């Protein structure tokens, strides 16, 4: 049912984007019972959602994309009771690029000290920036003009810029990841960009360690340790301790090092979660067992988290933005499947409960403490 969530300060809101609309879930901090609101934007796919709690806001952002009418960014200041509906499209490529927006894959509120700045990552791969709270958007030209861009090629999902990391320490440093293309870093606020893929192996290219062309699926940084980032690659889980200057494979011990999402624990920079899938063609959990794997050592020494998850004949797929953590203690973890199930854990993945089944295919899950 579509209604406003009755969320109070400190509650959890889990935003779920699907191929046919968005669904919102809300719980008190104990996370025993969730109420649902949705579908919002029925019939539209929602690949990107975000919560913006800066400057006293409690704002939800959603990218709704109609196969007929195109994609727009919308926001809600009343937990989904009402949404903005921009008359004119708000994210547009400039005419001279010759490009047209296909989809919006990522929404990233800017740094706390710049509460009116937001970024979004789109398909075809490009970064957009807003400096007026999301009313108007402009193409980040420095990345668009990068000489590598002409040689980026689409992954299975299309050619998308799906990850934006604003460095927690250096206000001029931004990371993005694009499939394919890989990781790029700017140290001057987005004016210039350099590939940062050293050490990431590409079995699908004749050169095994190219400067760019990697198919990064998702990348995360922990704010308490900004030189450390993790990424899930198209085969391979990687870690960097020098802000992307070099990467090390830390996927050894996983039943498969292919997968889409990677999540870093909100309070523990050495703890990460992945969800392995068997092979890049099959894309289902190994042995039909739906398991999240956790490392508390910054990769390696992986532990299977499976209590409450189907351990027989589960042929689900969990996509790159479909897993998320809340910042409560203990942290909550959430993920949604392409089969339309939504799972939640209130004990950092030790046990799981199915919050919903029968949703449209889930493409995005974002949890926030509001």
């Amino acid at each position, binding site marked *: 049912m579509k209604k406003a969530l009755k969320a109070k300060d400190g509650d959890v809101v889990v935003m779920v984007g699907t191929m046919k609309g968005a669904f919102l879930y809300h719980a008190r901090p104990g996370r025993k019972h969730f109420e649902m609101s949705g579908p919002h934007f029925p019939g539209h796919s929602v690949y990107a959602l975000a919560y913006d709690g800066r400057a006293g806001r409690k704002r939800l952002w959603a990218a709704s994309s109609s196969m007929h009418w195109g994609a727009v960014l919308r926001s809600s200041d009343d937990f989904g009771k009402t949404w903005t*509906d921009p008359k*004119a499209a708000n994210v547009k490529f400039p005419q001279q690029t*010759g*490009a047209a*927006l296909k989809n919006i894959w990522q929404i990233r509120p800017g740094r706390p000290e710049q509460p009116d700045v937001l970024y979004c990552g789109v398909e075809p791969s490009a970064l957009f920036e807003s400096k007026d709270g999301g009313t108007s958007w402009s193409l980040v030209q420095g990345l668009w003009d990068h000489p590598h861009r002409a040689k980026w090629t689409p992954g299975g*999902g299309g050619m998308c810029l799906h990850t934006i990391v604003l460095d927690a320490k250096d206000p001029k440093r931004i990371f993005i990841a694009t499939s394919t293309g890989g990781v790029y870093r700017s140290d001057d606020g987005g004016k210039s960009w350099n590939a940062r893929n050293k050490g990431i192996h590409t079995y699908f290219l004749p050169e095994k360690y190219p400067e760019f062309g990697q198919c990064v699926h998702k990348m995360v940084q922990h704010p308490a340790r900004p030189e450390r980032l993790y990424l899930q690659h198209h085969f391979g889980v990687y870690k960097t301790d020098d802000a992307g200057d070099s990467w090390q494979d830390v996927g050894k011990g996983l039943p498969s090092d292919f997968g889409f999402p990677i999540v870093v624990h909100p309070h523990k920079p050495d703890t990460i979660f992945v969800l392995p899938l068997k092979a890049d063609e099959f894309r289902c959990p190994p042995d039909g067992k739906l398991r999240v794997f956790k490392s508390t050592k910054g990769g390696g020494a992986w532990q299977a988290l499976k209590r409450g998850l189907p351990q027989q004949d589960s042929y689900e797929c969990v996509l790159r933005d479909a897993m998320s953590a809340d910042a409560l203690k203990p942290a909550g973890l959430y993920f949604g499947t392409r089969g339309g199930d939504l799972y939640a854990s209130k004990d950092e993945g030790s046990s799981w409960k199915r919050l919903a089944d029968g949703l449209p295919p889930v493409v995005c899950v974002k949890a926030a403490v509001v």
Partner: protein
Amino acid sequence: MPVTVHIPGPLRAYADGATQLALDGAPATLLAALDALGARFPGVRDRVLDEQGRQRTHVNLFVDREDVRFGGGLQTPLRADAVVHILPAVSGGSLVLLP
């Protein structure tokens, strides 16, 4: 009679609720008609054409009941009393699963 444009249900919110609009100024082509429409209601034009002015893949445009994809496209000439239909294509509701 001026050129008439029929607005489909999903786009009426961007056209002050109008089901159809009469265009003054005798637009000579379909594109000129959409530009005139866009000057009044940019939300309609943006949802029919992308930012490069190309007809969106899953939107169909008819002039006097003929699908312009099989004719002159956006350059289809309009009679003074032409009737334009904007309609969502049946292909647009499919569930394309993207990994």
